[in-house]
């Protein structure tokens, strides 16, 4: 082998580098730039180092929002993933029923975020909303503007309604791709329904579920329009999530430095959680013995 060294070949990656620069690096650097300065006007700015980061990390309101954010994301994942899998398992496999159910299930996914918020805002109103009036008729004083628990439950219900279809669709496609021979072999091996789910269906769904969970985690961690329209973050700050806090700070108060620092922290948290999750899943698929080595 005669390897030819020609460093001009590096120029070939220039287009890719520029693309990534414009799509990710430059916008991100703008934020980094703000996060380490205190900007008064176009000509007056001071370098602040890590000060904004310290302020942000020690802000009790933001800490509370972060905790709420985690609680929200993990709750909806814990509901939507099993529910989505369950729906996918129950969906008809062929014929017109399959198409009909697919369309019905997909409907919520086609509605824009703030419209979803408005729909649920009307739906849950105590005076005219079907759900609001309905629950009150049953004897429970349902009120999302007064009672934090009601507000929480409603936001979670709304998210489950809006996004479980995504998990269901992903799982449905995953289930459809399992060859018949697996089910036949399982019958021959006298496997129970549970064993078929546990050892055939679930493993074959791993890949689509990884995508589903990552998408849903990122989405829900950044949730903004729906709770903002539905509850405005209240009552009090009980449903104020991170995005809303950030928007208030950046747009409402024009605190560019702190909000830039906060954006970066926000971004790193999402990155970290996704990385941990993905690495954990991938590691679980490897052989846990060193013997033989693949």
């Amino acid at each position, binding site marked *: 082998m005669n390897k030819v060294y020609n460093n001009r070949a590096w120029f070939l990656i220039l287009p890719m580098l520029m693309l990534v620069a414009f799509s990710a690096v430059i916008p991100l650097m703008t934020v980094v730039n703000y996060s380490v300065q205190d900007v008064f006007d176009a000509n007056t700015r001071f370098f602040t180092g890590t000060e904004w980061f310290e302020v942000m990390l020690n802000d009790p309101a933001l800490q509370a929002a972060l905790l709420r954010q985690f609680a929200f994301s993990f709750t909806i994942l814990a509901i939507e993933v099993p529910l989505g899998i369950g729906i996918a398992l129950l969906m008809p496999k062929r014929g017109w029923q399959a198409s009909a159910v697919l369309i019905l299930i997909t409907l919520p996914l086609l509605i824009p975020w703030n419209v979803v918020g408005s729909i649920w805002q009307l739906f849950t109103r105590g005076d005219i909303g079907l759900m609001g009036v309905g629950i009150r008729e049953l004897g429970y004083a349902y009120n999302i503007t007064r009672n934090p628990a009601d507000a929480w439950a409603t936001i979670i219900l709304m998210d489950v309604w809006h996004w479980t279809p995504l998990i269901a669709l992903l799982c449905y496609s995953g289930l459809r791709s399992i060859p018949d021979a697996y089910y036949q072999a399982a*019958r021959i091996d006298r496997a129970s329904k549970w064993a078929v789910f546990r*050892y055939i269906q679930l493993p074959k769904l791993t890949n689509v579920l990884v995508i589903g969970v990552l998408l849903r985690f990122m989405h829900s961690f950044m949730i903004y329009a729906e709770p903002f329209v539905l509850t405005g973050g209240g009552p009090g700050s009980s449903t104020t999530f991170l995005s809303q806090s950030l928007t208030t700070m950046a747009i409402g108060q024009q605190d560019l430095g702190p909000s830039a620092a906060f954006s970066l922290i926000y971004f790193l948290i999402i990155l970290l959680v996704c990385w941990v999750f993905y690495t954990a899943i991938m590691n679980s698929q490897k052989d846990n013995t060193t013997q033989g080595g*693949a």
Partner: protein
Amino acid sequence: MAQITLKSLAHSYSPSPSGPEDYAIREMEHVWHQGGAYALLGPSGCGKSTLLNIISGLLTPSDGQVLFDDRVVNELAPEERNIAQVFQFPVVYDTMTVYDNLAFPLRNVGTPAAKIRERVAEVADVLDLTSLLKRKARNLTADEKQKVSMGRGLVRDDVSAILFDEPLTVIDPQLKWKLRRKLKEIHERFNITMIYVTHDQLEASTFADKIAVMYEGQVVQFGTPRELFETPAHTFVGYFIGSPGMNLMEVARTEEGVRTGTVDLTLPPALRNAIHRSRSRNIKLGIRPEFVEVLTEPGEASYPVEIDNVQDLGTYRIVSFTFAGMPFRARLGEDRPLPRRHAYVRFPEAWLNLYIDEFRVEVGQ
């Protein structure tokens, strides 16, 4: 452990079959004896896999009965039939280790752990899987996976039968041979009925004691490899078994004798009489290329022919010639003299088979 009987069995995938063409399996009677090593041989689409799935219970036949010993099992699901089946493409449980894969069929019926350990160790040893037992099945190569699939069938020592549906399709040629030997070994050791579906005659004859040849949804012959070779019961068997297949000539009755194309045949009286007794218009004579004699000089009951070409295949040669307008082949040992162009051929009467309406007719001497 069971004798498997197929009683007036037929199967059609169409809900309202109108003719025999609509049947994937045409009505048949068949018995697979306990402990036999059988092959089910036939071209793609002849109904072999359908028949196998009917035996295992993955398919319910539209007509007739499947019996395990004296018990009708039509209504029983595969899980209740206690039968093992290995599919064409390897099926492994990805997230389990090889050990767990092999133990799976036993665990599903609550076999004691000690017994499972013993069986898995034994099967792993036979299939050379011992060193892989702790590996996850998803990381294996295709042939290792197929060995695991087979192992899951073999691990159950009480099964009625083990069915193989072209199990070596994905396996490398050298390994194929080794695995076939293994299966044979296992068969001798455990004395389990095995039915092996394949379209490869070599695979069938090395594995099986008796071969069922299927053609258009029917078992056209059930016999030892030798019987299939020497006395094919159907023209299809003649054509399908052997390399190259049997030479077949359509014959017609004349006042005096029998003629094919423009050639009057010199036939022994018994054969000629049998042809004359038949009312059918579909009469054929068949002879294997191995038994055609090629001569340089005319002899008794010989016919002059023109040799078209000769293929030298090392230890033997395939001679192609035209006889009565039909392409014929003869297989000659390398030591036999070979005429250049003009030759004479003889069809020894002992090896001439008579087919009326495609099925072989025994001719008394």
